[in-house]
């Protein structure tokens, strides 16, 4: 085996292990339900920006592309945004129940991308939606509707899939979860490295967090933030904790035993930021489903068990289900 072949074999072991698609299907249901009912872009917010004198302050690349393709009288208008909103919502409902899952997930992902990018083209841009929107696209490019879906039910009814027996395994049903884990780790690492690169180790001196927290707590009138911003020692401890979670989160990719601890750290981080600084990053918590589905009980069989041993050393997830 040449070095090139060994590298490809290792790549395949990491990204394309066999799986029945159950984990991906569960993740699809959780993430799409949350996006549809909790994080879905508000049409009211979209329409706020329209009207005389409308201009993009910092058009996102996607919106620049759309604007180049479509005449100004077509997009963005109240009509086109409302139509896009409802098409995206219907596609989301279809993705949730798993009907024409690939097509509906693609429409749902692209609709969300356009709506969020449109909202962020008027001078204010935030992070929370980014990774979740990427995950929606991954759903469209993977067999996420193969289990727990109307598509699967219809296939069985039409005799295209067996009614009983173990479901067939696929090699394309885990990469969206693994890639999401990697992107989460990169995002946290990016946040931690930025703090150290720009602020240095003095970022953990307590004063930094006090100032940032006080500013945000005043803006959002958050009593807990106003109280905590006055606790210097506590802010030192929390600063160290924040950097530890952000810089060490990538260990979840290699050391499965650390996953619960780092997810718990991330949970405290995001809930803490919300209650003290008013910044909702709950989309990140929803994406933790990419980890939590790996705790599902696994089917017991010799080949799978040996497969898991190999995969444990790679990115996160075991092979089946």
């Amino acid at each position, binding site marked *: 085996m040449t070095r090139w072949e060994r590298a490809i074999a290792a790549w395949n072991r990491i990204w394309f292990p066999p799986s029945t698609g159950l984990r991906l299907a569960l993740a699809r249901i959780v993430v799409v339900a949350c996006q549809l009912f909790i994080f879905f872009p508000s049409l009211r917010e979209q329409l706020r920006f329209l009207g005389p004198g409308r201009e993009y302050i910092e058009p996102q690349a996607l919106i620049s592309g759309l604007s180049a393709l479509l005449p100004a009288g077509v997009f963005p208008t109240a009509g086109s945004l409302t139509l896009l909103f409802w098409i995206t919502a219907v596609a989301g409902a279809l993705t949730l129940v798993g009907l024409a899952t690939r097509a509906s997930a693609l429409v749902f992902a692209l609709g969300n991308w356009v709506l969020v990018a449109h909202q962020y083209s008027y001078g204010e841009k935030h992070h929370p939606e980014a990774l979740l929107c990427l995950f929606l696209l991954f759903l469209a490019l993977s067999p996420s509707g193969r289990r727990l879906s109307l598509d699967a039910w219809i296939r069985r009814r039409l005799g295209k899939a067996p009614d009983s027996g173990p479901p067939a395994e696929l090699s394309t049903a885990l990469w969206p979860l693994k890639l999401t884990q990697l992107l989460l780790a990169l995002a946290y690492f990016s946040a931690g490295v930025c703090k150290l690169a720009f602020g240095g180790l003095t970022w953990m001196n307590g004063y930094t967090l006090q100032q940032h927290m006080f500013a945000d707590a005043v803006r959002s009138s958050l009593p807990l933030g106003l109280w905590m911003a006055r606790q210097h020692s506590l802010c030192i401890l929390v600063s160290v904790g924040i950097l530890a979670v952000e810089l060490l989160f990538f260990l979840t990719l290699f050391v499965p035993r650390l996953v619960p601890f780092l997810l718990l750290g991330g949970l405290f981080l995001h809930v803490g930021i919300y209650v003290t600084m008013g*910044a909702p990053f709950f989309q990140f918590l929803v994406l933790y489903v990419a980890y939590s589905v790996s705790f599902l009980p696994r089917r017991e069989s010799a080949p799978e068990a040996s497969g898991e041993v190999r995969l444990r050393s790679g990115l996160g997830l075991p092979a089946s289900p």
Partner: protein
Amino acid sequence: MSDPTQKPGAAGSPDLPAGAVVVVYDGDCGFCRRSVDEIRRRDRDKRMVYLPRRTPGIEARIPGLAEGDFDTGIRVVDRDGTIHVGADGIRHIASQLPVWRRLAWAYDLPVIRPLARRIYAWVAANRMRISQACGPEGACRLPGHEGENRSGTHPFISALILCVVALQAGTFAYGSRFWPFMVYSMYRESEGPRPIFQWKRRVIARTASGENLELLHTPEMRTFTIFEGHAAKGIDPLGLNSFAIRKLYLNPLLDGEVDAARRLADRINLRRPGDPVVEILVESQKLSAGGDGVVAGPAKTQAFPVQR
């Protein structure tokens, strides 16, 4: 690549279905077998017959096959006996398949044909290596084909994974201009020991009739927005986010740029004609963190008349 078409052939010999297009491929190559399986799956009208090159007696049935080096690629024998080779053969196959036949014309566009021939020639020359790299039995799987208990390489997905990771990891280099790939750099600056305080500000536009319009809008976090899928009542006086208002108008005003008041008033008047804005008021209050709690200083209001 050799001459892409060879004549004459003998596709109409009695051993082959009349009127069928014959696809002759390298049966020893797993990648080729897999590719032909994909084509066969899409050939719902059964317009083509698929034969491995080593099929006994094939040269007797299609004499033109003996000509040229088979390493140059797949042979597609047309109904009139013309043999299309390599990339040209793939184009001919596409013209037989539902959906794909509508895209086959793209092959004749400038640049596309020579480019496709070059790429095909490389793949054909390396098909055995590709087959070996593709896993057990050289059975590469192409995107969109699932349902089999078999692992393998997925070139499209692998490329996507590499692109996504590169775009996310590269945000340090190119900044965060391309949403959703962003630098996660919030709250990155350090602060030294100094009094903890924050200015709380309101920006108000006063109209000729005396109405006060509150301008700093912070979107609320709302859930179940799908069920409120209706237009907002009336027009927002500015149509901007709070960040943009601060950047474009509030900060310049506080820096003494009084023309910002006129620009702000113009924007509001454009969206809300009839009762023009005559004055912008900025209300500031300093809040400090003290040992006993938050101490609010006196609220100060600065008035910026709109000068024409």
